[in-house]
């Protein structure tokens, strides 16, 4: 870490607390863009920032700029419901998400920034023997791959989570739950800020209010970008712009992609006393629901996509009522709780529900996209793998299956077996 950045420690947190918090340094610089870098990352979401950090930290590449059209962390990485888990079973996803979860486990120490990673367990409710059998297959596959997972029968579930609706007359009576104890939540802003601050200290330029409008091609290579702040050149350019990927891809020379942009909403209630100690999720019939409680006391929850293409970062009422119905199904006592805030982000929905971290057919251009509902948990692993792919011009074994041409070769990574539709989570 460069000497200009003061590390956070107990003493200076205490001292600044006593002196009105007026003497902190900036967390990161606000540099002017230089004419040329070794690597440009487009998009300062969690994935772009983590990539810049691991380029500097793991590969010694510090002439890096992260270009962001708005403010860093203002996209999906600052709008999600912060669930972190690795309960995947398909080759390709399994190793990748578990690698990411392992990085989460040491992230606050690594970044010298409290990302508030809380391994409070991810509890996936079951409602029918068929659903239980399908999930048993998943959790057994996980266990064989060295990922933690267990079955909580009704008595154990009741003991640990007494407030759920266990009534026999419930619309969907609960029969048990599959649990990943090491899963949990983190503070989304802290993850973005922690990566930004640490990358900046290693020499990375994070340039906000800088929108990439086009790409500079020379001899068939991408050699830079045009922005609202002028031309910026680089030997390599990586895209990490989530739901905006399809708007930049043709300009970069990639043409059409196997991605649709859809919006996903999230909701936060008024603050309550501690109630929900775990992440609780379920999918049954047309219902899909996930809920946790933030440290400020708000219930943080969400459900499905709207299922029609959208670039509008705002929600709508039908999902509001679906999600409220799902909440009432398992936790009828929240019926009088008020929803304080609600918002939406635009998701890069791939055709099998799995992402792309890869080289492209255009020399000098690298792609990070296709995160669907689930890219928050992937931030550390994705940055780690994308940095490796860019630095070596070759994917790491962990992300080699996450290629853009896998559909062409019939190597889909379709966890749910749902076929080629941009609806998977």
């Amino acid at each position, binding site marked *: 870490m460069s000497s200009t950045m003061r590390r956070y420690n107990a003493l200076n947190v205490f001292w600044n607390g006593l002196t009105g918090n007026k003497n902190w340094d900036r967390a990161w610089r606000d540099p002017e863009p230089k004419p040329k870098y070794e690597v440009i990352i487009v998009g300062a979401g969690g994935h772009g920032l983590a990539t810049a950090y691991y380029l500097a930290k793991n590969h010694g590449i510090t002439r890096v700029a992260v270009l962001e059209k708005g403010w860093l962390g203002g996209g999906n990485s600052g709008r999600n419901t912060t669930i972190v888990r690795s309960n995947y079973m398909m080759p390709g996803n399994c190793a990748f998400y578990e690698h990411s979860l392992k990085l989460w486990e040491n992230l606050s120490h690594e970044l010298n920034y409290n990302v508030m990673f809380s391994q409070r367990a991810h509890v996936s409710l079951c409602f029918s023997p068929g659903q239980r059998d399908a999930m048993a297959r998943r959790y057994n596959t996980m266990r064989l791959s060295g990922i933690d997972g267990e079955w909580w029968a009704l008595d154990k579930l009741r003991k640990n989570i007494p407030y759920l609706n266990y009534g026999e007359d419930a619309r969907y009576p609960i029969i048990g739950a599959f649990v990943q104890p090491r899963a949990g939540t983190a503070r989304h802003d802290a993850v973005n800020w922690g990566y930004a601050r640490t990358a900046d200290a290693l020499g990375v330029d994070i340039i906000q209010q800088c929108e990439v409008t086009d790409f500079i091609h020379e001899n068939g290579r991408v050699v830079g970008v045009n922005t609202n702040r002028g031309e910026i050149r680089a030997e390599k350019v990586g895209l990490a712009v989530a739901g*905006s990927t*399809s*708007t930049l891809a043709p300009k970069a020379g990639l*043409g*059409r*992609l*196997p*991605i*649709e*942009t859809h919006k996903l909403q999230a909701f936060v209630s008024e603050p309550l006393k501690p109630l929900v100690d775990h992440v609780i999720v379920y999918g049954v019939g047309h219902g899909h629901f996930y809920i946790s409680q933030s440290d400020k006391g708000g219930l943080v929850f969400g459900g499905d996509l709207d*299922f*029609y*293409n*959208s*670039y*509008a970062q*705002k*929600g*709508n*009422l*039908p999902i509001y009522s679906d999600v409220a119905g799902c909440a009432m199904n398992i936790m009828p006592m929240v019926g009088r709780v008020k929803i304080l805030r609600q918002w939406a982000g635009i998701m890069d929905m791939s*055709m099998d529900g799995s992402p792309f971290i890869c080289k492209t057919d255009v020399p000098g251009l690298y792609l990070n996209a296709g995160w669907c509902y689930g890219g928050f948990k992937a931030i550390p692993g994705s940055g780690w793998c994308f940095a490796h792919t860019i630095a070596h011009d070759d994917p790491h074994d962990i992300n080699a299956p996450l290629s853009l041409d896998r*559909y*062409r070769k019939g190597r889909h990574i379709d966890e749910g077996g749902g076929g*080629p*539709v*941009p609806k998977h989570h």
Partner: protein
Amino acid sequence: MIRIDCPFCGLRDHSEFTYEGDATVQYPALDAPMEDWYEAVFLRENPRGPHREFWRHVGGCGSFLEVVRDTVTHEITEVKLAHPGMAAATGKAAAKTTEKATGGSE
């Protein structure tokens, strides 16, 4: 809430409809080369702006509709019956442009 002006049923909330995806996809002949099928099944224009798409009025007449909707504002500028034969038989073949924005305000 987006509202769609169904040629049979009139202006209805979009929660009466199911979204059936991109209407610009042209499926190739069954014996077409693999590459053509790859493009049709997997690749999407995914525009930020006007998008031609199918909706089905499941909570109403059941018709498949072809709709042009802006993916940023959600404004709908065109609604017609998706099946050309159906559209001709009912005399509602012409693309129907709603007078006012029927979507947009969410």
